[in-house]
């Protein structure tokens, strides 16, 4: 068996062309991630899936699986670093969970819970960001965007549209939409688009569906994201 690698000492198989993330997911090993989704081209930007491959730090979602790799993922050191990176995502935006409809179903929050993140650690940025409620069925709250580009990719790769893009540089990065007015209502986004449903946080929400499930009874209230993620991603479509 040459097509195997180890993750935290456990041998797992992989097929040629798979990334470490794909091999891990297929083998039932959860590696924390936010910008990765099995349906779309890997992006490699959130850096939560940081693993050590033969001693070198790599993003599991983009790094190719290769025979004999010794991958470390669930170590104290990497978990501590992932927690810091998650805290960075929290402080750069405005994440007031008690006032967010996504709470309990939010992957950013769920990863934070999973990593036992109890505070923000860093000073908060409190950036000035807008809400775009112009679309009759879909809402953008820029305060919660973490620039994972899943909506950008879903719109291009699944919906065959180009509704979203990331603009700006550095800490001034922001999500924009493809309309002369700059407003979501003037794009060709439909509420049934994949892009409208892919946001891991509460930055893109479907209107008129709020609070159907009470807070406290939501997805991550009783289930950890590792279980949820593997259940959803372990057998991607077509396999």
């Amino acid at each position, binding site marked *: 068996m040459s097509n195997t690698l180890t993750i935290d000492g456990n041998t797992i198989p992989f097929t040629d062309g798979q990334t470490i993330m794909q091999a891990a997911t297929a083998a039932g090993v959860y590696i924390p991630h936010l910008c990765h989704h099995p349906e779309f081209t890997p992006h490699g930007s959130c850096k939560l899936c940081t693993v050590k491959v033969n001693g070198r730090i790599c993003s599991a979602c983009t790094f190719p699986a290769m025979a004999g790799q010794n991958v470390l993922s669930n170590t104290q050191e990497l978990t501590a670093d992932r927690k810091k*990176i998650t805290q960075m995502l929290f402080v750069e935006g405005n994440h007031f969970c008690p006032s967010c409809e996504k709470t309990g179903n939010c992957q950013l929050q769920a990863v934070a819970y999973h990593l036992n993140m109890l505070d923000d650690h860093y000073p908060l940025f409190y950036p000035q960001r807008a809400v775009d409620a112009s679309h009759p069925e879909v809402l953008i709250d820029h305060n919660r965007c973490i620039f994972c580009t899943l909506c950008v990719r879903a719109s291009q790769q699944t919906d065959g549209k180009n509704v979203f893009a990331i603009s700006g540089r550095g800490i001034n*990065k922001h999500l924009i939409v493809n309309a002369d007015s700059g407003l979501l209502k003037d794009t060709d986004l439909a509420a049934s688009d994949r892009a409208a449903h892919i946001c891991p946080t509460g930055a893109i929400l479907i209107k008129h569906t709020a609070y159907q499930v009470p807070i406290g009874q939501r997805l991550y209230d009783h289930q950890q994201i590792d279980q949820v993620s593997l259940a959803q991603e372990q057998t991607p479509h077509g396999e």
Partner: protein
Amino acid sequence: MQAFIESLVASHQHQPTHLLAILRAIQAQAHYIPEAAIKQVATLLNIPRSHIIGVIEFYSFLHLTPQGQYEILISDSITDQMLGKNELMAYLSEQLHVAVGAVRGDGLVSLNITSCTGLCDQGPAGLVNGYALSRLSRARIDQIAALVEQQTPVAEWPSELFQVEDNIIQTDLLLTTPIESGSALKASYARGLAETLAEIDRAGLRGRGGAGFKTASKWQYCKDEAGPERYVVCNADEGEPGTFKDRVLLNTYAQQVFEGMTICAAIIGAEQGFLYLRGEYLFLYDKLLQIVDERRQAGLLGNNILNSGLQFDIEICLGAGAYICGEESALIESLEGKMGIPRNRPPYPVSQGYLQKPTVVNNVETFLAAAHIAVHGGDAFAQIGTAQSKGTKILSISGDCTRPGIYELPFGTTIHAVLAACGAEDVLGVQIGGPSGTFISNTEFDRRLAFEDLATGGSFIIFNHSRQLLDIAQNFTHFFAHESCGFCTPCRVGTSLLKKQLDKIVDGHGSAGDVAELEALCQIVKNHSHCGLGQTAANPILSTLERYPELYQSRLKAISYEPGFDLDAALATARRLANRNDAAAHLAQVEDSL
């Protein structure tokens, strides 16, 4: 404007890869990119408007809102600061009645700072409508202010304002006798292309951008890739503060650089090359176009070069103010008309580069050296330098010395020898390789220029004892926060956090745990960032913290905690509105007693 854009886009054959050049031209014409222009370009190029906005907002020299008819930018490199930039900037702001970062009410002039413009040997420097201004002084500022007020077109400004000297002080193997145009190509064909690649291998030439990958191996890998289409790219996006050697090489040795690129093309089988010139070097653009044209006339570019059957041409592409584009995959993205965001690797550019085709990206100096080796062979080159670092290194020396400028020195030269050559005295330390490199103290001057010791892309900034180390680290840290592309979390957020945390300490608000916190943050940014920018962004802090821990500790207060924001200032608005100034209307930054 509409007709202008139509013919502009047509002149670029409606190629979306030329978006940056198109937007640069619109910016030069209108001093911003108007909404109507975005719409028109989107239609003409058949690309989403959000793509165009993304590009405009990514590059510092493109704007969505109107800038002044005279866009003045002052270089904020540490070397410019050491030459009095801050005072001059304030004076300029006063003379022109415009705040830094603002456009004057009448729209005539705008003023801002910009990252190092590559004139560190003749600063303080700046840019007006993209053209480099050198040796700024109060007298020159008076002159500039008058020219602006009289609305004299920049093209009619006195040429001495734009005078850029080469300042070549010490030459060696490469710079003493440049090759004759065509001689390297002739020698390569006479010897055989495979044999020429072997000579480059024998020479031990390694990439001069700083990373030091073996040039012959890179060319070989690219040559070995399947498929007919390949590209050669010369990285002249010399953005590392303190580096300016490529400016000089392209001003005076461009023929040899182009010849190096052409040899590479012949060896790997490329038909198209690009020279990606940083936007700050706009003043070299016309000259380079002319040289490319001369080479076409001379049969050294174009179809059937020197009757060898080789077909190769070179396009000069301008950047638009983004340090990150010096990273090779970000540079390729930029060449494709996109935001300069570094790609995931693998795949590497040698297998999937420009338009996903195999691409060699090398530094200006690397191509210069390759052309030299093609003429003189590998052995002569390999005789110079150290076991692992062959040949010479061209340094851009600036800062506290009597003779700043260009120095070509054999690899293995000690820092002592470099400092003696340029007339540096009372030296506190040297920043080698720019902000992303290393700061070394005056106890380490026996160390050598070499990939195995002190690697550098060429930046060499000298600081004497009058300089404050923490001010230097602060300048560099702000630079990285400004230049982070924002793609990955650790760099996007981390560089801004580093800036906050270092400012807190330098401004005297640090307390017990703040240095440890700073160091922990450095490790996250360094270890987890996506590309070289983030991975080196903490170096200015880490290399000074390692050498001068007491300097950081001395700024800390002997208390357990102090807020990172100004508490009393946070009450200022409320005080004003309540019309109060009593003791209870103020807060001490640190609690002394209850």
